[in-house]
């Protein structure tokens, strides 16, 4: 009788421990698993064997004027618009091959990029974008529109661009230009 009881108790105890472990494990998992804000693109685009490329236009700054200057670049074409847009921003951050000025602090990185059904591209940069930015209206305007125009010009499905910093909304880029609203492109800033 006693042995039986102990055995049953033992089995129950083991079951309880297993239940507790399973419960906490799954509970923990749920805490870690945050609702994904959007499909997170792979930042490192793996070159595929097919190797199809697409020509895009990046917009850089010049020492000569306050306009955005186009420079062609090739990106991998056989991927989603999100991945192509990410590549575009990464190429933009890498800088010009023709000696144009970069509109980014060199330490800036792209954290993530996603596009909503309404055609708003959310581009999330590392905090260096604002922390290391020289500030000043002209500098901020050109940084913003090099991003915005480079995206809207190459991808028809992108109508507006929302700039995020370090995963969240920032009030301004460097004290001037409003980052709390999505930007429409400003084609008048592009040099011919």
């Amino acid at each position, binding site marked *: 009788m006693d042995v039986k009881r102990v055995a049953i108790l033992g089995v129950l105890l083991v079951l309880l421990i297993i239940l507790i472990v399973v419960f906490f494990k799954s509970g923990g998992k749920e805490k870690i698993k945050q609702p994904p804000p959007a499909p997170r693109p792979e930042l490192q685009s793996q070159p595929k064997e097919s190797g199809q490329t697409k020509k895009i236009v990046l917009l850089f700054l010049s020492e000569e004027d306050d306009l955005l200057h186009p420079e062609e670049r090739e990106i991998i074409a056989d991927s989603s618009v999100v991945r192509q847009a990410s590549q575009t921003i990464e190429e933009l951050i890498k800088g010009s091959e023709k000696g144009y000025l970069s509109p980014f602090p060199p330490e800036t990185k792209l954290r993530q990029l996603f596009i909503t059904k309404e055609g708003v591209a959310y581009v999330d940069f590392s905090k260096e974008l604002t922390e290391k930015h020289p500030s000043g209206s002209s500098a901020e305007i050109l940084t913003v529109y090099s991003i915005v125009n480079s995206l809207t010009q190459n991808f028809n499905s992108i109508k507006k661009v929302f700039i995020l910093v370090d995963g969240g909304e920032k009030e301004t880029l460097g004290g001037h230009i*409003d980052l709390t609203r999505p930007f429409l492109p400003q084609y008048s800033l592009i040099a011919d």
Partner: protein
Amino acid sequence: MKLSAKDYPDFSRAIFTSSFPLSYTLEKSSSFLLVHLETKFRFRIQRDAIESDFIKSFGWIKRNDSYTITIETKHSNFKFDHFVQNNPYQLVIDFRQLEEKKIESQSSLEEAKVTDGKKKETPSQPVVSNPQGRQSPPAAKGIKTIVIDPGHGGLEAGAKGKFGTMEKEITLAISLKLKGIVERNLAFRVVLTRDKDLDVSLENRAALANNNRAGLFISIHTNSSYRKNAQGSETFFLSLNATDEEARKLAYLENSSPEFEGQIEKGSEDEIKMILWDMAQSAYIKQSSQLAEILQKELNLLLGTMNRGIKQAPFKVLTGVACPAVLVEVAFISNPEEEKDLLNEAFQNDVAQAIYRGLVSYIKLYSQ
């Protein structure tokens, strides 16, 4: 359909918000404005808040395929403008009272003082309040207070020059000089958004202007560029990003009460419940562009800096300001030559003088 009314510093606004576009005609009939709407749809009309001294009530008459909305105003002496915006569809009608009291506006200072003593008065009263008793050359309609905003401040230093000059220092120096010149020559009240090296949020700057019923808002900045040799001065007014969405937000959260007016000058920013006029500036784009043009002309004349013209950009500080508002980029602090200029007292005085002249021309234009 929702009907609402609200007073702004120099006009009163009626807004019809509808879930579909309206085909309308307007007809003035003594102190009423009749809005004839033709529609196949039946709709429910709902009176929303009427927060206006001038617009007294809404009424309506329904016929087969048409409605007539009646807007009753305080008196028949008014003119009106109207425009529509989308998402949601809104018919906006602005009422401006005409001076029925020509005699009063040219009257003596005593009378001006009496009205000054009264807290509440109709927003477009053309009397300039003036404690010093100086006669303002042009008594611009509705403009009593000018708000000058020295860019940046406190921990937020703005752009920096090669010699270490900080944008926040120059903007304050120029703003203080401008305040002095305006007060010596014009009868307007001048309010600075900061008068020392202080952190003031961009929203609070706009709120301060709105709480003080500013007639003009001038934000002073020094520019900075990635280009080493960028130079010159330019004047900005707000560009609306994603206009369709902003129109929807035009209705603002109102939280004003007469007590605020007394508190504001004590600098207790945090205690002031802000009047949040989100995107209020969108109603003033045209006047702001004119103000920018006039100021830029004077800057070019007096400074001899390169003319970079007037431009539009989405400046955070301008979005909530409910009056004509511009942002002046005096010169480039990132250009060592101009940084030296900006540090120079005489140059700072010239800048203040140029902006002052621009203000006078603008006010003259608007008081005609």
